[in-house]
């Protein structure tokens, strides 16, 4: 079994990001769009964690030693919190839209269009 390297992580992360983008651009359902966004955010988190594991911190690591760069993990935590907050606001908006338009398709919420 070969070692799992940084490239593997980045590959996974890219696939996830692409799927997220695809979801955001193609879905007609606001909730699916939200899920796409979540995918994109989490692919970022994978990147953060992977880099924190594989990249040596220039300040703390001595010669030949492997140490964790804690900044990446902290950023990932921030992103999770942000995603949670975002999901809460997003779902609240979607609820209101549904009440107003009886639909949650972004195509139909077009009353501001000139």
């Amino acid at each position, binding site marked *: 079994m070969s070692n799992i390297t940084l490239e593997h992580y980045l590959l996974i992360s890219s696939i996830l990001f692409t799927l997220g*983008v695809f979801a*955001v*651009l*193609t879905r007609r359902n606001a909730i699916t769009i939200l899920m796409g966004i979540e995918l994109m955010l989490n692919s970022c988190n994978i990147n953060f964690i992977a880099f924190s594991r594989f990249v040596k911190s220039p300040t703390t690591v001595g010669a030949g030693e492997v140490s964790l760069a804690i900044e990446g993990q902290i950023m990932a935590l921030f992103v999770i919190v942000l995603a949670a907050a975002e999901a809460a606001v997003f779902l609240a908006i979607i609820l209101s839209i549904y009440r107003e338009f009886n639909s949650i398709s*972004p*195509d139909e919420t*077009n009353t501001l*269009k000139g």
Partner: protein
Amino acid sequence: MIVTFIFIILICPLASFTFFAISSLMGRKSSRQDLISTFAMLIAFACAFLLFMQVLGNPSIYKVAGASTHTTDWIQIDNVSLPMGFLFDSVTSIMLLVVTIVSSLVHIFSIGYMHGDPRYPRFFAYLSLFSFSMLFLIVADNLLGIYIGWELVGLCSYLLIGFWFEKDSAANACKKAFLTTRVGDVGMFIGMMMLFTKFHTFTLFGENGIFELVNNLESSDLTWLSIAGILIFCGAIGKSAQFPLHTWLPDAMEGPTPVSALIHAATMVAAGVYLAARMFPILTDVSSLFIAYVGGITAIFAATIAIVRWDIKRVLAYSTVSQLGYMMLAIGAGSYVAGLFHLTTHAFFKALLFLGSGSVIHALHVHHNDHDDGHHDDEHSDQPVERDGIPPEQDMRNMGGLRHKMPVTFWTMLIATLSISGVPFFFSGFWSKDEVLGATLERAMESGSAHYYILFFMALVAAGVTALYMFRLIFLTFTGQPRDQGMYEHAHESPKSMIIPLIILAVLSFPIVNKWSVKKYIEQPGQVHNHLAPEHANQFVLYAAAGSADHHDSTSHTAHKGHSPAHNIAMGLSIFVAGLGILLSALFYHWKTFSAETIANKFRGVHRILWNKYFIDEFYDGIIVRATIIGAKIFGGIDKYLVDGLVNLVAIIVNYIVAFLVGLFDNKVVDFLVNSVAGVTWKFGGRVRRVQTGVIQNYLFVILTGVILLIIIFRLLV
């Protein structure tokens, strides 16, 4: 010093006029304009008198024509310069004196005569301007200056003759005077320009003056010079009312009588004689003969018309025309001195006659008004009627016996009449008229030319006729029985302001004053033919060589004049014809031995011609005026129909074609451009707006594509 005095003489009347003009512009009526004007004229008179004293002190200097000039630059255009200046010699001095005396006296007379006229101040302002113009004309040292004064005089005569412009006759008379003199002025202007093109100067005297340069001419230029001289003399024909442009002067009697005195004695008509005298040095044989003939014909022609006039002022008007003819004749006959001498004496006695007639008219006119106010009903039938268009107070058929009512007017007018009639020895007119006749006869004898014998004969007859009509005037007006009792009873002697000028002028009609002033102090300038001495001079035409030589030595010429046989013959004949004239006049109008009516009926044709003034007016009305009107109508028609039609046609064509083209351009080109801009914008906008789908996912897609593209570009570049 001379310049200062001349300046004062010019500025006084001008200032008086300016004062009136300014105060009128400011809306205030200068109530004392009469005193201002009179005072200004008196100052001018005083200066003129001092200048005259200057001449008397140095007769030998000033008697040369153009003795003293004071010139200064006026206009400079490229290399043509027109200087302006004053000329002073004995002629100027005498003219200044005559004009200022007569003008002052006319001012004084007018205070009484014009009293109560609604435009009283304006009258005096005009008089002042008139005097200024005449004085300027006299002192100007170049033709241009003379021309300026000349035209100003013309303007003032227009204003003064038409002073009572409410009357149609006065309004017409002033137009007639203005237009008729203008005919002559055109000739004068052409003559001036001929001289200017030849000599490049308007200056008369001095080294570069016309009179000096004229000596450099070739004999072949004589014809040219004659034409120029005659053309300039045309101006004098107009202004001095010579035949055939004399018709304006009798009509000019429509002006107030003091104006008649001023215009027809001292100023306007004298200007023509003055001009002819000033231009004396350039007069050639031909132009001299022309002048002499114009003068001679005018003298006899106007005198005969005067015999049958009933209007007291018209008699004097024709008399003036006739006397001016004498002056012209003298100048044409080559006697400059005689012409100016007669001008001086005539100025005084003719002013006196006019003012005297003014006094008579004033006396009868006041009566006329009283009559209307007082006894309106009972005497209405006695109201004098207007006959032949003559105002009743000017009609001699209404006068008679006024000697008892107006003794001063009578005696002063009698003196003037004796003077103009040429009654010997005690009256100035005799001496000056004798000069004229003598000069003509002398010229005739010297040259042996038939022309001058004819002219002498004409002048002699005119002298007799003059005595006849002048005494007719005196007899009809002052002696015999009153013919209009109502008028006679109300007639009265005029106020002092009118009487005093009459007395002064009467004194000036005695020969001591005039002989003393004129003859001794003027020297005749040489004429051009003396210097040119053409080899092939036609002796028959004018001056014989002997005459020219005699002429050249002009001091002796004037001195021996009085003793020459020609003068003695002329004097004898003139006394004889004057006596004959007076006798005839007395037979007809005083003793009534013969009846004038019978004679008039017997020679009905002659009377009709004289009464209608030789039909000259009718000729002008019938031919010239009518031709002018017809011409004007034809040209007016051409203007109205042909020219206007063409213009309108062009306008229509232009209107349609241009409007069409412009409209087309507007519609097709301009609108197309504007619409295209709008359309392109519209279509482009229509395309571009489709990008804005409103679908967020599309936007996101574009953004993503953009980011990816940017990344690729960035990679490629870095």
